[in-house]
């Protein structure tokens, strides 16, 4: 029976004892970028609300976002957004049962890093 050693098994997620792999690292990055995007959502909403409210409120946040530091923040944010989008798309593809072989999954992982970077550069060129 399968219920030998019930209740004494290691609990998931036990990343601490895992050898870092391309596939797990690229998946963990999806989660990190997803949570950091909440912070960027706050910046965008703040900016919109300030524009709708008053000149001084808008001048403050717009000045911050259009400064070099704001530009750096937004560039990181756009990278996180593209990476997360590609990452979630990969999870959808995995869920439909495709791309699950190790070498395909690793290629997709690398593709996410490269793709997000290319899309960020494209965004910077277009915008």
């Amino acid at each position: 029976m399968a219920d030998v050693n019930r209740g004494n098994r290691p609990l998931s997620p036990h990343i601490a004892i895992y050898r870092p792999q391309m596939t797990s690292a690229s998946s963990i990055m999806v989660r990190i970028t997803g949570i950091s995007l909440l912070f960027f959502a706050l910046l965008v909403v703040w900016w919109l609300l300030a524009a709708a409210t008053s000149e001084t409120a808008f001048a403050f946040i717009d000045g911050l976002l259009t400064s070099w530091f704001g530009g750096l923040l937004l560039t990181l944010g756009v990278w996180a957004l593209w990476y997360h989008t590609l990452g979630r798309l990969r999870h959808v593809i995995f869920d439909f049962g495709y791309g699950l072989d190790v070498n395909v999954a690793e290629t997709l992982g690398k593709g996410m890093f490269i793709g997000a970077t290319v899309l960020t550069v494209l965004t910077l060129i277009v915008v």
Partner: protein
Amino acid sequence: MRYLTDRKRARGLGAGGTGTHHHWQMMVRSMLMTVLVPLFVITLGLGLGGTQEEVLSYFARPFPAIITGLTLVVGLIHLMNEAQEAIEDYVHGAAEKLTLVAVKAFCYTLMAAGLFALVKIAL
């Protein structure tokens, strides 16, 4: 000897208790966001960097306003569920419940504030 199947015994023991519906909702919103994200990046990028009057007249137009509104609602629900998964995995007990409530409050507030701003700009 228990008369439960292995599958039945495993039910409800995941980090989130139940998660099938949540997971499918994530998949649906992931697919929706794949279309919205490129549209939103272009929309916001074109809107940024102008004077306040330019920004106001830009977001008063239907296309930028609708894309931004859609992204705020669908995107924030998606990120909220993303955060929920992480919390269920790493925070437990009362702290887990309180963190979940705090994240939901934060996301719903952002949604309401963003939508209010859009409505005020558009009208």
